[in-house]
């Protein structure tokens, strides 16, 4: 009885009794969620356009951050370093299309997936070869002071991250659903052959998608790198994106956002209110358990395309 009360009743009472603290936990969860969404977004873009899970997305985040820091250490001003890194990501996209995607056209998805694993190892080694493997501090000038908003204490860096993330996401949503290129991208995602027959050049589309995914990786790299330093473990946040994708659906941009937010808030709240009951560390596995539950009841995710099977 005692345990049941502690698990099912007490945490809710705590939330009710200290609303400001709860708000703080909730909002900081939301802000972390935005960061997860940013990473997940890169996966969604490539999955939409080629039906392949890009294993290298996490390493692309690391690579972008490494390049940015490396350039800044060489004395390049921040704005120029940002532009140069974006250019590097676009060039990377062109090279990937040329040497990796083009020879593998019409192959099974699993083969492309394996190629992305290779890409991940290559990029990791290549990045460290050029920029070294020390932990680096990344500071692009986003303010970090704590601020009080309506009595809730927040980190202004998180707010900036959320704002930038929101703008990026809104831009991508419009891009995908309103513009002719977005339509062409969705067409390629749906059926390669048909897309070719109406005259959509696959090559160009792939370059665009990988470039956009590279730039999203850059933004994610700035945010995560600014928070926890630029180092190898940055590429591991890709694993946090997996449950986000399962929740949101692999093909949905809004899904990546909502999934990220749910997981960000869920793990923070679970950690703070339920963590003490079992000695903490809920934050580390909460997302995966939630993903597992989703796989059981709604495998296509919250916003994924319904799987329609005609028999």
């Amino acid at each position, binding site marked *: 009885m005692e345990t049941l009360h502690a698990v099912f009743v007490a945490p809710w009472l705590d939330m009710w009794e200290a609303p400001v603290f709860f708000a703080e936990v909730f909002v900081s969860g939301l802000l972390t969620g935005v960061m997860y969404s940013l990473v997940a977004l890169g996966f969604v873009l490539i999955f939409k356009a080629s039906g392949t899970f890009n294993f290298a997305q996490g390493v692309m985040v690391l690579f972008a951050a490494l390049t940015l820091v490396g350039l800044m250490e060489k004395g390049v001003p921040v704005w120029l370093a940002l532009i140069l890194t974006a250019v590097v990501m676009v060039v990377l996209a062109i090279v990937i299309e040329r040497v990796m995607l083009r020879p593998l056209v019409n192959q099974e998805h699993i083969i492309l997936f394996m190629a992305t694993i290779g890409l991940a190892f290559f990029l990791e080694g290549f990045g460290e070869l050029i920029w070294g493997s020390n932990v680096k501090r990344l500071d692009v000038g986003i303010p970090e002071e704590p601020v009080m908003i309506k009595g809730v204490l927040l980190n202004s860096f998180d707010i900036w991250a959320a704002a930038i993330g929101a703008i990026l996401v809104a831009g991508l949503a*419009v891009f995908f659903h309103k513009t002719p290129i977005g339509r062409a991208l969705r067409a390629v995602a749906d059926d390669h052959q*048909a897309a*070719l*027959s*109406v005259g959509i050049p696959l090559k160009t589309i792939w370059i665009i998608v990988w470039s956009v995914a590279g730039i999203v990786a850059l933004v994610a790299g700035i945010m995560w790198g600014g928070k926890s330093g630029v180092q190898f473990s940055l590429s591991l946040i890709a694993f946090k994106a997996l449950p986000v994708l399962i929740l949101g659906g692999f093909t949905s941009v809004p899904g990546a956002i909502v999934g990220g937010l749910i997981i960000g808030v869920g793990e923070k709240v679970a950690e703070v209110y339920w963590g003490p009951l079992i000695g903490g560390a809920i934050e580390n596995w909460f997302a995966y358990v939630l993903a597992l539950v989703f796989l059981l009841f709604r495998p296509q995710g919250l916003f994924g395309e319904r799987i*329609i099977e005609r028999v």
Partner: protein
Amino acid sequence: MANGNGGNRRRIGGVILNVEDVSLSFGGVQALEQVTFSVREGEIRAIIGPNGAGKSSMLNCINGFYHPQGGTITYKGNKRKQMRPHEAAAQGIARTFQNIALFKGMTTLDNIMTGRNLKMRRNFLWQALYIGPARREEMEHRAFVEQIIDFLEIQAIRKQPVGKLPYGLQKRVELGRALAAEPDLLLLDEPMAGMNTEEKEDMCRFVLDVNDEFGTTIVLIEHDMGVVMDISDRVVVLDYGKLLADGTPDDVRGNKQVIDAYLGAVHD
């Protein structure tokens, strides 16, 4: 049903597509063996033959999915060795597929809009920004697509995802997408397969109307002999990758070899 053989209203022009000695093989399998025929501007040309005769392979060569090992394909006076599908599309060749290849998650309207892809003049950057001229251009294309939707009588399913539509309607949407490109040469791979009589009659009417109103040259593969004899001007018969006969529906119908290889088997 209207009869396309008369040709009194329609103008049949010079040769738009010439296929000469085309051979194609996959490993040891000879899909096409020195096939030669031509298509004149404005005509409806049927390709018939038993299953596995190489009909779809022929279409795939014409629109650049396959690259024949031997022979030449001359389109609008230009001989070509190899061509990619999107280049063929850019030169005015549009097609439909035997197993419908629509973008299933997208609406009817979006599917047909993709057919306008090559007609969009603004470059990618403009399109991405989607402001001013790019937006105006999109409106013009939308207006054109609405005409096609009216023409094919699919107004009611404009906003529905095509994956959920019945088969016959999907075929019609696919035709719409091909028409949106305003093609000079339209390749239809079994446009009436799997349809009931009423749907077939509708489809025949659309094919004839397209040919009639827009002067589009049409090459179609079809199994229904009644349909083929009714709507086509000239017929190519393939069997085991070889050209068996070539002529008007009446010539072909009377050809002994064709009767043996194909018609006899179907109509005995």
